[in-house]
């Protein structure tokens, strides 16, 4: 499989079960990719020994031959963002502060993935403490975009998206507080899903902002995301934000695209500041959706212009509260960009935090109202292609904008509202950088998003392209 597109999770699962693909061969292919590219792209914080992984894969093949039951992800190589607790590997959040930190327990989702038979290749880089959209990390060094290593991979789940894009694994975990699953998925040309707040447990994942944090998968395809979500979703009584809802059979139903669909294009905010090539790809994508017989219509979410204030008030205050003791003891070991963020959150007024939460409710109600008129919202995931690692500003439509502000502009609203959001590749710039479509749905309707995204990927091949690196 060297140099070729990795098998999908469905293909790998079926192959392992039927004996046409063995788990050892699959694992070797992923490990070879990691051997070739890890140093160049700065992906792993910790890798599991090759011999250990090959033994685990051998066990999967042995169980299959013996006719024993296999879990839904048996033999599937995955990586974990290094903020997910693991009983057998350190959890560092890519920070000097947590070097060698061991928790002796697995995150709730890691337990579920292990029980499903997934094989954990290692823990991968994040923007330090998941607090930033680039994975340019003062302590761990910059991670690099596989489509052009001079550019950022996006963050904070940068290592996860790079590993998926380059075939080091078939699936990865990420977390998303203002877009941290969607940014790297978009910039690396892969699929990312931020599910509804409460669908996937956050227990055992280092927090950034309790009420905005979401866990979710990063994969090559929407179909793969359905497999990962099927395992990761589910009520956890020990996560105060977890919500008990029926879990649909995403894997069986992802292929059942809706015959009719109303796709809403928000009139405000999302298209106000978009790079020309991104806009062209987005418009072309809408034409593809229309060709499916789906209706495109404008919707209004009038108070979106206040979303940034709400996001910042909540994120800054919650992050600084969560990290307060760590900062008291170890501030000198925290990278300067993160230290600035955590110091800033300490001066905010409680009344402003609550103002943010009150505005959040208004915006959430407006989202809810829009979903009475349309089934999904469509936007560019990020208004710009991946900036260079050293780039602090971008020029869009005659305006100079901070690159960091541009990256998360279209993603943080769905963190405020808790809405599920799926991002999928929908084009490339002339310079060869991926462009991504974001689909946002009503709370707990991940299934429709997956069905819509899967239908799009049946018709297009953006998600099948492999980065030139390596």
């Amino acid at each position, binding site marked *: 499989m060297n140099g070729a597109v990795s098998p999908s999770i469905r293909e790998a699962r079926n192959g392992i079960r039927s004996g046409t693909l063995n788990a050892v061969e699959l694992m070797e292919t992923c490990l070879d990719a990691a051997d070739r590219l890890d140093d160049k792209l700065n992906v792993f914080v910790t890798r599991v020994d090759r011999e250990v992984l090959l033994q685990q894969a051998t066990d999967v093949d042995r169980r299959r031959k013996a006719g024993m039951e296999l879990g839904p992800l048996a033999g599937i190589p995955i990586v974990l963002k290094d903020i997910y607790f693991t009983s057998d590997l350190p959890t560092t959040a890519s920070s000097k502060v947590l070097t060698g930190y061991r928790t002796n327990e697995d995150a709730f989702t890691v337990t579920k993935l292990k029980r499903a038979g997934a094989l954990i290749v290692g823990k991968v880089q994040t923007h330090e403490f998941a607090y930033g959209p680039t994975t340019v990390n003062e302590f761990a060094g910059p991670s690099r975009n596989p489509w052009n290593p001079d550019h950022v991979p996006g963050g904070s789940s940068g290592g996860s998206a790079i590993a998926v894009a380059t075939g080091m694994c078939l699936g990865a975990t990420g977390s998303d507080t203002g877009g941290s699953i969607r940014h790297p998925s978009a910039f690396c040309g892969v699929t990312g899903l931020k599910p509804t707040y409460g669908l996937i447990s956050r227990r055992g994942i280092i927090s950034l902002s309790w009420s905005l944090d979401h866990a979710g998968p990063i994969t090559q395809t929407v179909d793969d995301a359905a497999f990962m979500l099927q395992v990761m979703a589910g009520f956890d009584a020990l996560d105060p*934000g977890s919500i008990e809802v029926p879990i649909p059979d995403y894997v069986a139903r992802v292929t059942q695209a809706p015959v009719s669909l109303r796709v809403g294009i928000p009139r405000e905010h999302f298209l106000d500041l978009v790079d020309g090539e991104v806009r062209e790809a987005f418009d072309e994508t809408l034409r593809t959706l229309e060709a499916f017989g789906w209706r495109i219509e404008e919707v209004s979410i009038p108070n979106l212009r*206040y979303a*940034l*204030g709400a996001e910042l008030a909540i994120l800054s205050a919650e992050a600084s509260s969560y990290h307060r003791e760590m900062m008291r003891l170890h501030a000198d070991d925290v990278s300067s960009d993160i*230290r600035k963020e955590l*110091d800033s959150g300490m*001066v905010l007024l409680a009344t402003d935090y609550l*103002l943010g939460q009150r505005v*959040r409710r208004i915006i959430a109600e407006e989202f809810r109202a829009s979903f009475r008129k349309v089934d999904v919202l469509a936007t560019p995931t990020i208004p710009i292609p991946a900036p260079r690692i050293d780039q602090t500003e971008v020029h869009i439509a005659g305006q100079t904008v901070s690159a960091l502000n541009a990256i998360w502009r279209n993603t943080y609203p769905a963190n405020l509202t808790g809405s599920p959001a799926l991002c999928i590749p929908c084009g490339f710039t002339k310079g060869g950088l991926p462009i991504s479509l974001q689909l946002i749905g009503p709370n707990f309707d991940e299934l429709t998003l997956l069905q819509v995204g899967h239908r799009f990927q049946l018709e297009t091949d953006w998600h099948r392209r492999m980065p030139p690196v390596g």
Partner: protein
Amino acid sequence: LGLEANKGRLKTMAIRDLNSDALLVVCDAVLREIAGYPITPERLDAALPLIREILTAIRAMDELDVSASEPMTTFRPLA
């Protein structure tokens, strides 16, 4: 109060920059006297542009009438 400021161990922005930047002085006082989180002048200097940016975004919300909106928090019994 037992706060760091009363122990006289750290320089304060309030003394150095009392007349130069109101936000700087206020942040220094809040961190030192209210939050119990005194930081060095260098750290506060570094954070100040970001604090200004965050506050600008937050104050923009003042335009919106939130009188009918309760904070977006959810409570349910823990198991």
